[in-house]
């Protein structure tokens, strides 16, 4: 397989294609008849998924840290590069995005009944933005893509959303924009410092890594970057945009938001905030605050989730809890914790995406998301119930599902260094059952007494086709996560190594031995 990929030159064009080809699909959508817009979009994104699968083989787990890398000048006088590349972390984020997108599009066929062309165009635009975020190796390029993801999502929520869509869309936009502007300031400051240090302007991440910064500067810059990412994650107490955005967004919007967009925040921490400001990241204040917020988020969000009357809002709050696990895994600054955090990211993408899909399917059938309107669905919709139960169990981290692998490793890694935080976070295991099982019971179990529920159809073939790959992945990653962990490990080690010797990194600019990139071909 990898020989074949090599023969067609896959490594040299794959990332560019995955980033920009979604835009080509927009052309197709605009040309297609209105009723076919969804099919075109699905076909195109499915094609991109197939295309992205090649990354799995062309990424050599034992090879260079950043692979499939390329670098070209974009804006010369400012030192902005068009630099793409993936490591073991970005690899899975890209795959998660390309997997989520066709499923989300497939799930919108029944839901989106107006302005289809605009909707699917925005979805593909979103895909460009997301993939771009994960493959960018230039800070400014990253920022551009980071902002690019914001716009389509804003419109998706604002146009196709529920009743309070405008409020939710604006809240989402302002929250995120506030953070990203702080980050922009941080980027420019870092750029100025790097420029005076290197004598040449650059936004290229590996070159910026060696910039010497005082601890105060690092803490401030970390604060700027961290706020942007923490909002995106979202980290307690910056999370309140999420429930609103999720509840109002159309199903595909929620799916993409939960499965991929939230990951940008945690990915940003790992890719930028940690390596760029190692002393700040390992500063006891920072880790203390982040661990505290993560733990509080886990418990708090679980509690709040448990009393939600709206199923979608409940799932939204569980996202906050899950991302809390990611945060503590990251800021434990252990290999186990970081890999666990990454596994939680992947698993959360799959399971929460699936939960949103399921809630969306329920909504399409009954036009309500209020949990108490359902009951006894396991009798009329056994397939849906099975998928729901498996997904819910993955979400609460039952062993044998991907959720467990992530949570276990994240908690273990946290406990290794911070037993107190680890122990408190582990209570999340209890509270996960506390929020998820009542919902499962009240939707699927109990008496089937509502005639409308009695007439509810089971999963259609299309819906089963959407859920099947996700359910399979949940089990597969739970039983055999080895290949994923193995590919992540070098990248994780590199990040940690960089954080650990933050002091010595100052002495060896600009090319860092840990994050090194092949020169552009």
């Amino acid at each position, binding site marked *: 397989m990898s020989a074949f990929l090599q023969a067609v030159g896959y490594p040299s064009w794959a990332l560019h294609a995955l980033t920009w080809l979604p835009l080509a699909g927009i052309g197709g959508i605009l040309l297609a008849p209105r009723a076919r817009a969804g099919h075109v979009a699905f076909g195109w994104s499915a094609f991109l998924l197939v295309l992205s699968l090649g990354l799995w083989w062309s990424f050599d787990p034992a090879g260079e840290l950043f692979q499939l890398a390329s670098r070209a000048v974009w804006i010369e006088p400012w030192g902005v590069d068009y630099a793409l590349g993936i490591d073991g972390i970005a690899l899975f984020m890209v795959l998660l995005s390309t997997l989520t997108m066709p499923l989300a599009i497939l799930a919108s066929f029944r839901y989106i009944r107006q302005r289809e062309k605009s909707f699917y165009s925005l979805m593909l635009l979103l895909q460009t933005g997301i993939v771009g975020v994960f493959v960018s190796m230039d800070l400014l390029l990253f920022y551009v893509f980071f902002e690019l993801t914001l716009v389509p999502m804003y419109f998706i929520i604002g146009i196709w959303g529920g009743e309070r869509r405008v409020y939710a869309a604006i809240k989402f936009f302002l929250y995120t924009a506030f953070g990203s502007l702080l980050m922009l300031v941080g980027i420019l400051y870092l750029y100025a410092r790097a420029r005076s240090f290197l004598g040449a302007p650059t936004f290229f991440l590996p070159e910026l890594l060696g910039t010497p910064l005082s601890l105060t500067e690092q803490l401030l810059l970390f604060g700027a970057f961290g706020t942007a990412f923490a909002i995106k994650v979202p980290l307690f107490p910056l999370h309140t945009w999420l429930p609103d955005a999720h509840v109002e967004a159309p199903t595909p919007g929620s799916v993409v938001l939960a499965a991929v967009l939230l990951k940008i925040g945690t990915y940003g921490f790992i890719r930028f905030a940690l390596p760029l400001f190692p002393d700040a990241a390992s500063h006891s204040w920072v880790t203390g605050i982040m661990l505290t917020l993560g733990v509080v988020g886990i418990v708090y969000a679980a509690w709040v989730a448990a009393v939600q009357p709206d199923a979608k809002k409940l799932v939204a709050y569980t996202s906050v809890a899950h991302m809390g696990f990611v945060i503590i895994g990251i800021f434990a600054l252990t290999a186990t914790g970081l890999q666990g955090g990454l596994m939680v990211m992947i698993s959360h993408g799959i399971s929460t995406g699936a939960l949103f899909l399921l809630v969306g399917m329920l909504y399409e059938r009954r036009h309500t998301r209020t949990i108490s309107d359902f009951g006894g669905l396991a009798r009329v919709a056994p397939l849906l119930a099975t998928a729901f139960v498996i997904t819910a169990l993955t979400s609460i981290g039952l062993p044998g599902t991907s959720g467990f692998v992530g949570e276990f490793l994240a908690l273990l890694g946290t406990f290794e260094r911070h037993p107190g935080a680890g122990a408190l976070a582990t209570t999340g295991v209890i509270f996960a059952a506390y929020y998820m099982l009542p919902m499962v019971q009240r939707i699927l179990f109990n*008496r089937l007494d509502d005639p409308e529920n009695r007439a509810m159809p089971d999963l259609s073939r299309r819906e089963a086709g959407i859920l099947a790959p996700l359910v399979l992945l949940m089990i597969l990653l739970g039983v055999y996560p080895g290949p994923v962990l*193995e590919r992540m490990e070098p990248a994780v080690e590199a990040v940690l190594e960089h954080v650990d010797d933050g002091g010595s990194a100052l002495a060896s600019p600009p090319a860092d031995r840990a994050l090194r990139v092949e020169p552009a071909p």
Partner: protein
Amino acid sequence: MTASGFAAGPAAQAVAPGGGEAFEPLLPGLILLLPLLGFAGNGILALAAARGGAARLRSGEAGAGGEPERRLVHALPTWLGPGSVALAFVLSALNFARMAGVELHDPVIRHYWSWMATGPFTAEVALQLDQLSVIMNLIITGVGSLIHLFSVGYMREDPGYARYFCYLNLFVFFMLVLVMGAGFPLMFVGWEGVGLCSYLLIGFWFEDREKADAGKKAFIVNRIGDFGFLLGIFLLFRHLGAVDYVGVFAAAPEAFSYGDPVVTAVALLLLLGAIGKSAQVPLYVWLPDAMAGPTPVSALIHAATMVTAGVYLIARAGVLFALAPVGSAAAATIGAVTALFSATIALKQYDIKKVLAYSTVSQLGFMFMAVGAGAYVAGIFHLMTHAFFKALLFLGAGAVIHSMHHALHATHREWDAQDMRNMGDLRRYLPMTWITMGTATLAIAGIWPFAGFFSKDEIIWYTGARAEGEFAVLYAALWAIALVAAVLTAVYMTRLMVLTFHGNQRFGESEARNLHEEPVTMTVPLAVLALLAVFGGWINVPPAVHDSFFGGFGLLPMSEWLHYWLEPVTAAADGIRAAGAGPYSESAPLGGGEVLWAAVATTAAAAAILLTMRALAGREVRPADESSPPEGGLARVLHDKWYVDEAYDRVIVRPVVGASRFAWRWIDQFVIDGAVDGIGALVRGLGWAGSLLQTGQVTTYAVILALGALTILGALIL
């Protein structure tokens, strides 16, 4: 489990010392795979059946209908469900025979694949075959097969027949993972997996809200225990860098001194896990509710196997508990308290399954006492005999309920088929059930020569034998509690038998005509288990007892076999305990040897049985709808289960729910969102203030412009 995955690691080749032949496990993976395949097959059938049912439901056909399909969906699970477990039993037995044929000191480990490996942490998917896991395998698959067989009859009429076997097979799979996994993480997989199956099976009739609630409660309470288990694993890894049994047990004695606080913490955390799974005080509350599931499920999961996982955990981690005397003492104390506490509740319950449930909790308490006293073999021994007689009791109760249900159903009487006040004199209608349950009652009461006599006696003895050295007073008190609890066991079991099978007949003649003995698929398991309940105890008789009257003065085929069999597993823990806490004393706290106290215990139990029969014999019992709960006093408190559920609801559940609501309404919506929206409002307010300047009058703008010009000019010039 791919072919390449079967490559055995170096540790797998355990060569018996002295060049003896090595133990070569026979397809251990297949033991697990068989129930898993059964699960998959039954799962597909269950989904097909459920979809058919759903389609009929939607189209409005309330009736059963679709007979041919029904038959197919029935026939396959009947073979697939019990068959897969029976085959697994055969394989386990073959492995047992192989192991028995060689001298094996070190566990044999089969590595399949690396499950989680990050940085310094590795968790392998590997199976450990040693004496303990093999004997647990035999119990699980053996009792499991019988209960599967029983279920064929019991669940025949249920529309969810295939789903039932699907869950049950999955349970057996996870239970086997639990006992065969070669490390704590894999045990945790089984641990939570069986919890899941328990959840699904308790809520099997999920349309009944109470049953679904019971399943949920079981899962959540279990998760509290799992929290402790997880932290125990984390702590082990933090200090030992290993989580597989071989690594942990090799490193622990070196890393921890006797009584080291870390190992004490580990032991207490693992104990928390065990408490949750094995329904000990204070986390026992889920088990009585778990009786909402089908009765064979109660027999298999909530009596014979899953709930004993806690005992297995402590026995397995014996090295750690031996290093932590406080942890052991805590386990023993909790066990004793539980044994007595739930026995008192069982005295006043009328639901036949509730009595058995509290009895199970109580017996599990005995097992905890055993492993807490360091008598791991005694704990496993009681686990095994308990699996026999308690499974038998539950299946018997199932047969009773099944018959009563049919009888009441046939006469359309709205009575509770599980309430013993509605039964009475059933021995005339269900003789086979009566005999087998009677056997089990004698066994659980500890009457010689039934299995329970030997296992319970050993527990009481070892608890008493710890009443020297560390925690002497504590163990002496526990010993006394154990004796009392043993007597109470005899009392409540006799009460159950009398209310159910003897006394006046409370149901009418029309019901009586509809009562018949169960089909052979249900009676055969009863008979087999009855035999085991009689003779199962003979495999572990201490020499002193063996040579006394109780062993027929050495003539009966009794031996100390189990003790020797498990010795390779428990030797390390025993050694540590002996070195730290000293050897067991030779006499009970009040003096006297093992034989004497065995005689005392069995005599007391027999006396309790006779006295209880006597006390209940003349009493006229009224049916449930004509009787009221006890007026007050201790009887009322026991009937209402010491109000523990109510207290938990008041102290834990409601505050948590209240706090959740507070967090949502006040913190989330008011404080945080209020701040966010407040910032928005502030900006809007500033904008409004600014808009006051905007009069719409061109002149005003011109004045402002002029002022601006003036400002700039002034700045430039001055």
